[in-house]
């Protein structure tokens, strides 16, 4: 028996060691990278590991980032590992994984995550230097918090009024114009806007701003302070308008995103409020992009969302990561490639100008120039849940507009205080 154990363990060790041969090599490589960061790397010259960069991207951006990464790899000799993730998962995975040291060096993301990423200490500022001026102002502003820039913007997206030119030949100036034009077109719906039973405050925001009721107070530099601004008379007027339109049937909670897009694609309405992500399904239609018609007496300003790349606060390859972003992803080629992959107007002014030869892109860009950045302060998270449902309840007539709106304000304030 003793012999059997001896033989067995000898066999096991040989097998294990041979199996470990490959792991050993990988281990050495990993050891090298850890050594680099310590001061002991005396023989760094002869043992040149050039480091590797892990980048999280989602499906639509994968190929564009890959081509930028190739340029980076050939010039610097560093390796770029591109990891495909679901866009919806990136935010929470990034927050959870950066502290464990398993997170990526760079991730794609939206600017409105910024507040949450900062409070959790997972992003590092990126110094854009002179390149900052080459970007659209709103793009850099969106990624700025407390005076520091935290990401490299690459695309700007906003909603606008998409018009089927066969059914309506001019842009409506106001909401009432739009409705009467829609009725003249004699289609199933005069006007399409996605709502759903949970509401859609993002898509409805231009109407709300046209009554002069922005969600938060805006500071002079364009950033938001966590003071709710959508209460008061302006907010009540907007709530009243929602109730009236709901009663008239022009707004209804039955219209979800899918239903709205399908109906517009079938030519059942001359107008739909939406963004560039819908266009793929409207390929057969002749479209024009117009500003969202104002329902109140002020300009209808939609939210602008900016997409960009963040650098992890705990990246061991911060140098590579910043180099990749600032010197390789900010080029016109890279930004144009990202535009072609995702269809969202580029954040780099030169690339955006080039892309604007397409009237659709130019239309969205024009509307975006008048829009306001979506708040990126962490308080914004507490607003959505109350906001949408209240709007939906007012539209469906199940709640009194003024009462529901003021209850929503106090509920949000309660949630912000807790």
């Amino acid at each position, binding site marked *: *028996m*003793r*012999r*059997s*154990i001896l*033989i*067995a*363990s000898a*066999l*096991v060790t040989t*097998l*294990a060691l041979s*199996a*470990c041969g490959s*792991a*050993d090599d990988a281990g050495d490589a*990993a050891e090298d990278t850890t050594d*680099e*960061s310590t001061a002991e790397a005396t023989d760094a*010259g002869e*043992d*040149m*590991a*050039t480091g590797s960069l892990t980048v999280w991207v989602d499906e639509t951006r994968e190929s564009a980032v890959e081509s930028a990464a190739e340029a980076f790899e050939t010039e610097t*000799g560093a390796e770029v590992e591109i990891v495909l993730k679901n866009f919806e998962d990136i935010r*929470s995975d990034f927050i959870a994984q950066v*502290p464990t040291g398993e997170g990526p060096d760079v991730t794609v993301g939206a600017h409105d995550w910024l507040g*949450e990423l*900062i*409070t959790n*200490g*997972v992003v*590092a*500022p990126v*110094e854009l*230097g002179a390149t900052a001026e080459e970007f659209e102002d709103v793009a850099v502003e969106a990624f700025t918090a407390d*005076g*520091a820039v935290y990401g490299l913007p690459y695309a700007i997206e906003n909603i606008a009024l998409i018009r089927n030119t066969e059914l309506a030949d001019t842009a409506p100036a106001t909401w009432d114009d739009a409705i009467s034009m829609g009725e003249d077109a004699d289609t199933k719906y005069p006007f399409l806007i996605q709502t759903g*039973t*949970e509401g859609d405050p993002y898509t409805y925001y231009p109407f709300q701003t046209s009554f002069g009721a922005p969600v938060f107070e805006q500071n002079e530099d364009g950033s938001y302070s966590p003071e709710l601004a959508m209460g008061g008379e302006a907010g009540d007027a907007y709530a009243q308008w929602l109730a009236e339109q709901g009663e008239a049937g022009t707004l209804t909670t*039955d219209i979800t995103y899918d*239903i709205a897009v399908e109906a517009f694609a079938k030519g059942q309405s001359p107008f739909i409020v939406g963004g560039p992500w819908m266009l793929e399904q409207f390929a057969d239609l002749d479209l024009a992009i117009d500003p969202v018609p104002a329902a109140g007496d002020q300009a209808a300003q939609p939210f602008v969302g900016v997409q960009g790349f963040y650098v992890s*606060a*705990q990246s*061991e390859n911060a*140098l590579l990561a*910043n*180099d990749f972003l*600032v*010197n390789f992803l900010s080029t016109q080629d890279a930004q144009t490639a990202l535009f072609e992959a995702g269809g969202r107007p580029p954040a780099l002014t030169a690339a955006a100008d080039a892309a604007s030869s397409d009237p659709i892109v130019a239309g969205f860009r024009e509307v975006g120039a008048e829009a306001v950045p979506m708040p990126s302060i*962490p308080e914004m*998270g*507490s607003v959505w*849940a*109350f906001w949408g*449902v209240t709007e939906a*309840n007012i539209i*469906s007539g199940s*709640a009194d507009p003024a009462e529901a709106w003021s209850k929503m304000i106090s*509920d949000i304030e309660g949630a912000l205080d807790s």
Partner: protein
Amino acid sequence: MTDLQQTRTASDEAPGDAPAPPDSTRRRRLGRRDESPAGRYGAGFLAKLALMAVANAFGVYVLWSAWLAESWIILGAMLVMLAVANWVYFSRRTVPLKYVLPGLIFLFTFQIFTIGYTGWVAFTNYGDGHNSTKDDAVAALLIQNERRVEGSPALPLTVVADGEELGFAVVQPDGTATVGDAEAPLSAVDATVAEGRITAVDGWEVLDRAEVLARQGEVTDLRVPVSDDPGAGSVRTQDARTGYVYESTLVYDEAADTMTDTTTGTVYTPNDEGQFEAADGSTLNVGWRVFVGFDNFTTAFSDSRYSGPFLQVVVWTFVFAFASVATTFLLGMFLATVFNTPMRGRKIYRTLLILPYAIPGFVAPLLWSGLLNRSFGFVNQVLLGGAAVPWLTDPWLAKLSIIGVNLWLGFPYMFLICTGALQSLPTDVLEAAKIDGAGRLRTWRSVVMPLLLVSTTPLLISSFAFNFNNFALIYMLTGGGPRFEDASVPLGHTDIMITMVYSVAGLDGNAPKDFGLASALSIVIFVIIATISAIAFKRTRSLEEIN
């Protein structure tokens, strides 16, 4: 080991090993007295050896990776597991363990560890703003509060080294070449400048790109003072191509464990909540995880905004779980009884009835939420001829819809287990009932039903526990809605406790994330289910006595 013991274990061991033809056993046993019992290498032993070699290789690989990643807990746990596994499978005295061990290992990694981790998180304030350790929080605060001096120029920068020491060689805007390191501020030197960048400098070696990358951690950490005045800021670089002058607005004093804001002079000290707090109560935005004791449990039950809706949610959770089990079981049992009598095409009917069971539990509720849409759903449009029944948006109808959809989803399971139980009923008992003159109904009520319950009650209890936490159904079908109109929290009429936890803890993105609170509430739910199940199992023993 003595000879006596050896002999005993050898003979005890025989049945557990590779089966040998009976007539040869005797010969082998005799033979083995002379040599060591280990001299026998059957196919079974070799197979075991190969399997264990694979397991050990994997284990050693994990150990190695854990060592490199410095995760000592994984390393220790793996070491223990490997040692135990080798002992169990190479010892001859652990026959029962050989069968149980794989299950035990899975139990520990997937159950005990998860429960332990949840319990640990429940006593911390892990969540938004308290995402990591204090070291990480300090590092994050420092990098967030290091600002480029406004209007400072972009400086073409070259990384240089003097032996171990790294330095920056920088071309100033006026064209002078300067060099400095962490201790010595930038000072003018003689250097070769090509294309606006320093390519050679006296006393320093210029590092090429690969050398810079090999030491990138040091390069990004290096701060070269602009001048002897510490307030003038320091040069740092993020890409080793361009440097900027930065100054820190927040300074960490490691000895005193305080953060000082250099612009206002405010001193922040760490508080019990895991944040740096100033004397006036203001805090810095990045905090860290700390133990908060029972705080999560008390907040869960002390927030007045939740007290009203919480009661409604608890009541509905129980109603939903009971109703789900009752409806699915009754329908399943009824159909099983009906199809237990021979009829033409019975197999086809049975197959059709099991179909809903084949649709994934995540997909079916989504399908149904489309079918039940008020204006466009199949049910209203086609079945009810265009009626606008608010199936999912009216509080009572939404509850009814949920139980209905769960009935559709769940009865095939009950149908299956009842069919199985009915088919295994002993025929002699049924015959005895017949002989005793019992009618069909009487037989069913007094014989079939009690016997059926004996074998299905444990499954009913587990079904209750499953439905108590049936997150997927609620989340996919109604999302908890319609919302309580009188409540000040985002909860709805069809929210059950687990979906409430999901929303309260901000996992749906509608509130700041609070994993501590979520874990505490999960533990509360676990306690409730465990208690009910324990009581129910105890009760079923009385049923078993019928047997």
